[in-house]
């Protein structure tokens, strides 16, 4: 990933939007870059951390990352901060006042909207923040624009002393296309100048900044009218003209190469004059934007007759596939058909936990304990809601497992009086926003058993380091938080804190079963590393002795993807009940010997594999058998 670094100026290279932004951040002479990982934004900071001459950090959450960037920008140095769309919700408290103080050194905030929810709990349109916080929004349509707009963002930010939002979507962050890169320029900040009337936002000071913010809005709107990021491309087919931004622009150009288009790169404040100019050229105007009708609504309020979400979806990604039929219907033309086969029905392939994942032991155990209401959180372990465990009942936002659990406890009615409330949260999520919830739970005398799954990584986004594993963004040693001490300091009684190896199922089962009965806050910390990080060590693989397997299927309930069914059967029990049998094998080439499946195997049919030929290991990047 960091391989983009040695690329000399003027080279044309294949880069993702994330890599392109990272390059521009480095070229802009940024001094501080901070972020919390989140798909599809993660690679921006990962790549930035590979560049020299700047400070990069994984912050504990997005709000802290923005505050770190703000501090840097106050000193006159350039700063960068990035996050996924939901991260901006967390950081927004800082943003809403930052807009009043403004910045000294340039500050670009890249927000990555997961349009189409490839890996998120919701879909949001981050362009709203531009309107809400009165800051300009730039919207790239490919990697080259992401690069160029980041550089422009720093100029804009310093000229108006305003933070700038670079609004990206998955189709910008993760799409690779060609970028021509440039030279790095030095940027020297003047140093922090004490100016309480500007930087100390108490009512008396803040109130005086609000008129300045509105004045700036007007200046930015005037600039958007002349800025070359907003341009009209004329065309011969003037039945429909389009106003488009971001990836939607590419889909418009692909679908209607002869139509006039107003491309909005500097999309907020909206240049109404430019929009009117386009409208004068064409019979009707269609606004094409992902995902909410923001530009459309503002244009309608201006009295412009435009069409938008009446004919286009308000959810998910746009594509030529969506645009062509919509416009054909608008024009009363036959809907263009592509000759294509009907999709064939194939089983779903949802994401799974990894072979030997330490979470497998936790969810297998939770699936065996009755009468639990389990509030979950965000990370790999959200997969516990799926088969075969079905052992996670809620997922809302980062850290929500704590507050939701307390609310389930306090709000329980007659129907839930015998239910035990359990909260499941990962190490990084706990440090991000779970700690406060636990403190609240302890302070308010809740009755919840918390499972803190410490796998020493931000697993879902690729195993980034965090304060829980004692390594910084460069993999260098850093102070490591002690979870047992931390929860003790938050007020959990020491006898209610247990650290358990999640591969030892009987101990884990006993601990959970005992703790859910105690009417108090308990914290059970599991302490084995994510199998995808270097802290994990593989053990000797297991195999199934075919003759001994009785087909009971207990091992399948663990949910490890290394276990495969070889044949199925039926058995009639003495009671007359018919049960399904599933005989299994273990894919020894991927088994790493965690031993979880061995424990529920009644006939002891699972034993260490004795290799008859050299083991063929399937590793990351390999083509699996």
């Amino acid at each position, binding site marked *: 990933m960091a391989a983009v670094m040695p690329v000399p100026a003027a080279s044309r290279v294949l880069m993702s939007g994330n890599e392109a932004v990272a390059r521009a951040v480095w070229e802009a002479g940024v001094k501080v870059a901070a972020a919390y990982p989140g798909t599809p934004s993660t690679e921006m900071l990962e790549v930035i951390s590979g560049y020299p001459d700047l400070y990069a950090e994984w912050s504990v959450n997005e709000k802290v990352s923005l505050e770190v960037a703000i501090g840097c920008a106050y000193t006159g140095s350039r700063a960068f901060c990035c996050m996924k769309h939901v991260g901006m919700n967390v950081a927004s408290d800082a943003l809403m006042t930052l807009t009043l103080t403004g910045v000294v050194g340039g500050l670009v905030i890249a927000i990555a909207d997961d349009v189409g929810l490839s890996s998120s709990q919701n879909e949001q349109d981050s362009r709203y923040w531009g309107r809400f916080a009165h800051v300009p929004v730039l919207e790239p349509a490919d990697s080259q624009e992401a690069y160029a707009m980041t550089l422009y963002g720093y100029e804009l930010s310093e000229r108006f002393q305003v933070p700038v939002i670079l609004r990206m979507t998955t189709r910008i962050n993760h799409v690779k296309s060609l970028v021509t890169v440039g030279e790095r320029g030095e940027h020297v900040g003047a140093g922090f100048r004490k100016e309480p009337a500007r930087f100390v936002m108490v009512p008396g000071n803040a109130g005086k900044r609000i008129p300045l913010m509105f004045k700036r809005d007007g200046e930015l709107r005037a600039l958007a009218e002349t800025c070359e990021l907003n341009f009209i491309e004329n065309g011969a087919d003037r039945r429909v003209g389009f106003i488009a931004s971001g990836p939607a622009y590419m889909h418009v150009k692909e679908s209607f190469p002869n139509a006039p288009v107003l491309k909005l790169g500097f999309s907020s404040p909206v240049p109404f004059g430019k929009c009117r100019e386009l409208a004068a050229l064409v019979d009707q105007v269609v606004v094409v934007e992902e995902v909410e009708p923001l530009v459309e609504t503002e244009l309608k309020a201006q009295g412009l007759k435009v069409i938008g979400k009446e004919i286009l979806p308000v959810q998910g990604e746009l594509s030529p596939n969506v645009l062509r039929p919509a416009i054909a219907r608008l024009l009363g033309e036959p809907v263009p058909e592509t000759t294509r086969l009907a999709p064939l029905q194939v*089983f779903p*392939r949802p994401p799974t936990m990894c072979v030997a994942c330490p979470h497998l032991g936790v969810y297998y155990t939770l699936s065996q304990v009755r009468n639990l209401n389990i509030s979950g959180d965000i990370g790999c372990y959200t997969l516990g809601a799926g088969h075969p465990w079905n052992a996670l009942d809620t997922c809302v936002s980062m850290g929500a497992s704590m507050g939701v659990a307390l609310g389930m406890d306090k709000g329980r009615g007659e129907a839930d009086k015998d239910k035990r409330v359990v909260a499941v949260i990962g190490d990084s999520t706990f440090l991000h926003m779970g700690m406060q919830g636990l403190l609240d739970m302890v302070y308010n005398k809740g009755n919840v058993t918390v499972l803190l799954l410490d796998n020493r990584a931000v697993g879902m986004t690729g195993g980034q380091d965090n304060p829980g594993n004692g390594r910084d963004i460069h993999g260098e040693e850093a102070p490591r938080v002690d979870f047992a001490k931390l929860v003790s300091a938050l007020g959990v009684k020491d006898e209610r804190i247990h650290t358990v190896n999640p591969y030892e199922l009987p101990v884990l089962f006993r601990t959970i079963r005992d703790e859910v009965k105690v009417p108090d806050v308990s914290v059970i910390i599991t302490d084995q590393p994510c199998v995808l990080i270097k802290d994990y060590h593989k053990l000797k693989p297991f195999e199934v002795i075919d003759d001994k397997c009785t087909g009971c299927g207990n091992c399948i309930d663990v949910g490890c993807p290394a276990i495969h069914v070889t044949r199925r059967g039926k058995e009639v029990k003495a009671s007359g009940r018919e049960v399904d049998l599933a005989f299994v094998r273990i894919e020894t080439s991927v088994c790493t010997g965690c031993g979880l499946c061995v424990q529920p195997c009644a006939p002891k049919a699972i034993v260490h594999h004795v290799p008859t030929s050299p083991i063929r290991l399937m590793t990351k990047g390999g083509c699996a058998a």
Partner: protein
Amino acid sequence: MSDNTNILVVGIGGQGVMTATEILAEAAIALGHDAKKTEVAGMAQRGGVVSSHLRFGKRVLSPQITPGTADVLLGFESAEAMRWQHMLKAGGITLMNTARLVPPVVELGLFDYPADPLAEIRKGGNKVVAFDATTIAQDLGDIRLGNTVMLGAIADHLPFGAETLLDCVLRRFQRKGEKLVELNRRAFEAGRKAVGAAEAAAA
């Protein structure tokens, strides 16, 4: 409409689908094409479905391939090759690994793995070439070579010669020593040969 070449590479998380597509993109760029590569991967690191889109030509606008317009479908896994058939244009070709990767939902008995994905694909009427890339890689001594076998398999179905693609593959291994370069060269050629042989047999 565009004159782009559309290549769809599909498989599951961890198989190297995205890397393979990136190498294909590098080859297209080396020959002076504009190119865009995009994935619908999501949480694919955890064994989910991955479909990687590559479009190249004089100028590429939308990164996504529209259903019914893929020229070539390169399938790293049988059921996945089947899943994406509707993406092919009429007259498009499927090049697929016969390997079957059975997910936990099938092991749990909740869904069935198709009995004969190849036969299902053939019903669509487009050309399909199937070969066992996994065994080819294993016979060469390392299952990780499967990725290169797959790239070899597509080498003669591109609007440019195999040499550029091979160069791009080998460049990835240059720093890792001559032995690995040689192994990958053999894997690439084995993939080419497997497809060539399967086509000759079908003709």
